[in-house]
């Protein structure tokens, strides 16, 4: 996974790590322009064979999340729940924590809240503010 040359432009970096987990790193503003891209990227990753057990969204470089951005996160959550994949929102910036708290949706993204029956082996803390970044391939 390479750092894109321009972090001011929205982009997604996707990867599978050695343990078979899927990762999406979100850079830039998640809004009207970009929300669909995230949902689409997640759907593509979940279709991989074999399917990943976990999907990690790395939000460290997320600079803005508006209501459509939140809608896309909710869509990813729904897709994961249907596929039995556990979803993890890693490195949530303050703006995202605030939005999730305000809208009463933070609990959805607490670990294992997707209801997927996947044992959590990542050892991540259950409640972010800022969990350590996951290891990358």
């Amino acid at each position, binding site marked *: 996974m390479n750092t894109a040359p321009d972090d001011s432009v929205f982009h997604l970096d996707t990867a599978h790590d050695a343990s078979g987990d899927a990762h999406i790193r979100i850079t830039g503003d998640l809004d009207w322009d970009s929300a669909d891209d995230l949902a689409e990227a997640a759907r593509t990753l979940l279709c991989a064979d074999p399917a990943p057990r976990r999907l990690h969204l790395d939000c460290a470089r997320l600079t803005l999340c508006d*209501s459509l951005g939140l*809608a896309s996160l*909710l869509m990813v959550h*729904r897709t994961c729940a249907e596929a039995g994949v556990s979803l993890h929102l890693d490195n949530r910036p303050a703006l995202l924590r605030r939005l999730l708290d*305000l809208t009463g*949706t933070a609990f*959805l993204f607490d670990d294992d809240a997707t209801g997927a029956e996947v044992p959590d082996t990542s050892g991540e803390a259950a409640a972010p503010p800022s969990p350590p970044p996951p290891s990358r391939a």
Partner: protein
Amino acid sequence: MTRVEGSSPPGQELLSSVGAAWTRAPYPSLVVDTAGALVEVNAQAARLFPAAGKGVPLARAVPDWLVEGHRRAAVGGADAAGPVRGRHEQWTLEAHATSGADGQVVWWLVDDTHRELAETALRNEQERTRFLAEASSRLLASLNTERCMEVAVELASQYLADAAVLVAPAAGRRHPLSLCAGGEVEHRTLRIDPADVPGLKEALQGFPPVPSRWIDPSALPEWALPDGFTGPVGSVVVTPLPGHGVPAGALILLRRSDQAAFDASEELFARVFAARAGAALSAARLYMEQSSITATLMEDLLPPLLRRVHGVEFAGGYRAAQDTERVGGDFYDVHPGAAPGEKTLAVLGDVCGKGLEAAVLTGRIRGTLQALLPLAGDHQHLLRLLNGTLLNSRHTRFATLVLASVVRQENTAHLSLTSAGHPPPLIVRQDGAVEEARTSGTLIGVLPDVRSVTAEVDLRPGETCLLYTDGVTEARGGPLGDVMFGDARLRDALAECAGMPAEAVVERIHMLVAEWIGDNRHDDIAVMAITAPRTTHLTAVDGHTAGRYTA
């Protein structure tokens, strides 16, 4: 020098001053002496002026303008005279003078007829182009069909005819008509039979125009004559106004009998003009149809005008994200309690997304809430039902909102406030202290179940509860540019609003946010103020506050 054969008898000294080829020169030429008598006439000139011959006075053989030209050349010298121009029979001639022997003047004549015709045609063409450019810009200036018809007949009667009548396709059984003669435009809506005017029915059906010469001017019905038109009709042109697939109408041009009849090129030009008028009229019609549909739809979607209800002031303000779209994702409503002691339900919310999709979702939420009003006393229940109706397997578009149930007891307004994933309302007290209502809850429309906590708040006279969307706090701007308006500034602004009427609070907050935003782009912004009045309210002023067109 060689003597040459010519129309003049040979043996003249003349030929010492002109070339041998002179008599066969392709241009007419005359030699005239100082006394004004013809000395020599070449073959071309003899053909042009049959009366010309040696010794004949010039005045007897050629038109006056040439005689006058010669008089001046004889006095001032041939070189000084310059060319003279004039008509002779069907030709336009240009005559150039050169000096001959013994003060004689040699006139060379050039047929200028074609150049003049070309210049006239060019002038006409330029004039028509200028007219069409002006016509287009004036026709396209208004998107109002009646105004557009008015301009079309004004232009046509000024430039193309003595009077013009535009017949629009029937609306129902009546045809709108615009008529103009002498500058005054009349609009009529009449039940007419287009078949009364030869070619009109065809034109309204989009068939090719009927040639003017086929139309009997005396057969025109009374309705086709503008009031200002005097004198018998001499000639008529009926031409279709081509529209978007269907004709936009037909134009009838009238000339009085004392004017020249329409010629073929004028008829053609009338068609060119009609094409432009038709395009403009079609655009106007399309626009009017669209805007009336939009206006009808928006009546239901635009936030309502708020007023005092049962002794509590309600005021709202809304500004859509794009200035060209007045319907967006933010909304508010007030549903008055059935009687003064009953609760009034106010709601302010924000649906995810923009434009028509958001507006449709907004409409569903407002409609559902209206239907659920009997349950307004139990916010949790109401939100659960609303959530259920909005759940959708295809998308995760959601709404956040605040519910406020309001009832006045004595001088106090009692509020139950419930946030469903929305920024909690702010309350400004009499002393300017600002508090946040302690309510929170889940957004609506995505999750199978929703939970919320309701806050109970009392407003004493002059105190206000402000409901707002995040368009307020997330507005970017300020004197330094890209800074968020934020919670702190909103609280500071609200602190100044203690004791203000609800409308003034809304206006103040809106104004500060608008100034903060300046020229920047912004999201939808909605605020609602619920205020306990400082004084017992004025029955004469209750309700019916005339509102504004836009927030």
